[in-house]
């Protein structure tokens, strides 16, 4: 059986999922996540678990496409779904420091 997750681990998982949780909720998630991990451990007990994993039910070669271009979206259409834009760029709050590029 898995040990109960620490408070910090619960908060870390919440951060990765970008979910805000209250102090009062932490314990609830400690219990729920523990149950989940135990279930995963149970699956691992199945015979052949360590064999090569099957990533898709289709075991033949993936279908590929020719390197030919098709229809693209009009930039106006693209920007319609963005809360804010600046010229043709989609605008979001700053994520790194000024002048950096990623």
């Amino acid at each position: 059986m898995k040990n109960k997750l620490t408070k910090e681990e619960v908060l870390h998982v919440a951060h990765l999922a970008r979910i805000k949780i209250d102090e009062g909720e932490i314990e609830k998630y400690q219990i729920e996540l523990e149950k989940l991990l135990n279930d995963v451990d149970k699956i691992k007990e199945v015979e052949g678990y360590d064999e090569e994993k099957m990533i898709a039910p289709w075991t033949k070669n993936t279908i590929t496409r020719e390197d030919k271009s098709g229809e693209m979206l009009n930039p106006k259409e693209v920007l319609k779904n963005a809360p804010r834009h600046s010229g043709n760029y989609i605008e979001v709050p700053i994520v790194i420091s000024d002048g950096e590029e990623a």
Partner: protein
Amino acid sequence: MSNYIPTIGVEVHCELKTNTKIFSNSVNGYGQMANSLTNVIDLGYPGTLPTLNKEVINLAIKAALILNCKIRPKMHFDRKNYFYPDNPKNYQITQAETPIGYDGYVEIDIDGKKKKIEIEEMHIEEDTCKSTHRGTKTLLDFNRAGVPLIEIVTKPCMESGEEAKLYLEKLKELLFYSDVSDCKMEEGSMRADANVSIRKNISDPYGTKAEIKNIGSISNVKLSIEKEIERQAKLYDNGEIFLPQTRRFDDKLNDTVLMRVKETGNDYRYFPEPDIPYVYITEKQIAEVRKTIPMLPDERKEKYQSLGISEVNAKKLVQNRSLSDYLNEFLDEKIDFKTASNLLLGDISGYLNKNEQEIINTHLTKEKFIELTNNISDGTLTSKNIKEILDTVMESDKNIKEIIKETGIQNITDSSAITEMIKKIIKENPCSVADYKAGKDRAIKYLMGQIMKESKGSLNPKMAMDILLEELNK
């Protein structure tokens, strides 16, 4: 700094030269209006599914072959999960578990010795959108989202910024020549990260690692590694302990600075991409791709030198791919390659640079180039003549014979006339002749100068030199 042993590994992202993106049929292009090269797949609209571009696999096989990698016969893609505005799906499709290529190497020349830079693995992934940070905003352009990339990861096997620089130069040359990528670091189609750590003794475990991200040029890779080694050495010297970190090179500060990161280490929660079934690579497919690999730089240099071209010229030719490709058209011809290489790198390069032209767009046909080269080697044309007629050669459809006739070039090719002229010069310059006989090399240059002046540049210097030496040694 000299008290520590640096350990360096390099990761390179290279955009593949395809027409379309990796999982969608929108155009793979650079420098277009922002957000004009996208479709619903690139933007991660709900319900869309990726379809793998065949050409991506072919180019990745090609890259794996030229980097001497082993190729995995069966592979799949994985999702790398993170929340960040550069990727609207909240995951990047990459290959974490089954990289297409592994255990390869690139050979570099360092301090006159060959060294194999070992490649740990090479995988395929999609590029993210380009984000530019200005003031309080981050601006997103999704034209880059879904552009196919290969990421090439070396083992921690380099020991200096110079080695990393040589490796990147070689890698760039190989990928560019094989048409895998256009490798333009200034446009971001080739990007490098460096992992740097130092330790006191070779028997010690590796030191704490710093990763320097997104370095914009090869020379800055070298510089940033050197700066980072210095920084870490200072910390160790002062007895300070530091944590692994991500930094970037700031070319204004000329130093590495700490960077905020997306997620770290194991937080990416990789799992297999269920939307793309297995990809199988057959020996037949590898053989087909192998056929498309053109003659690579090292092979070209070797070939050129075997044809009598100097090492310097061979190197220069390889640095200019269009000239090298042009010359390769003549490899089976019987021409004087030394003259041909001098012509290409000298007057022809000058013309092309001045007129901002590519050699294939000029009127210099194969026949004309051969005629021109032969005319120089047999003395019909002198270097002075070439300068006179080159514009016409490059811009008109006339053959060389016609051009010579029209320009009225009449060179002295009659050896008895040349001998007469040289005898006259020898008679007029007894001091120089005495100097030559006393072993002063400068004298011969002076005499040649006099001869060329007397002939107004209308004779072949090599022919004149031969006759001059013959007359002097009589």
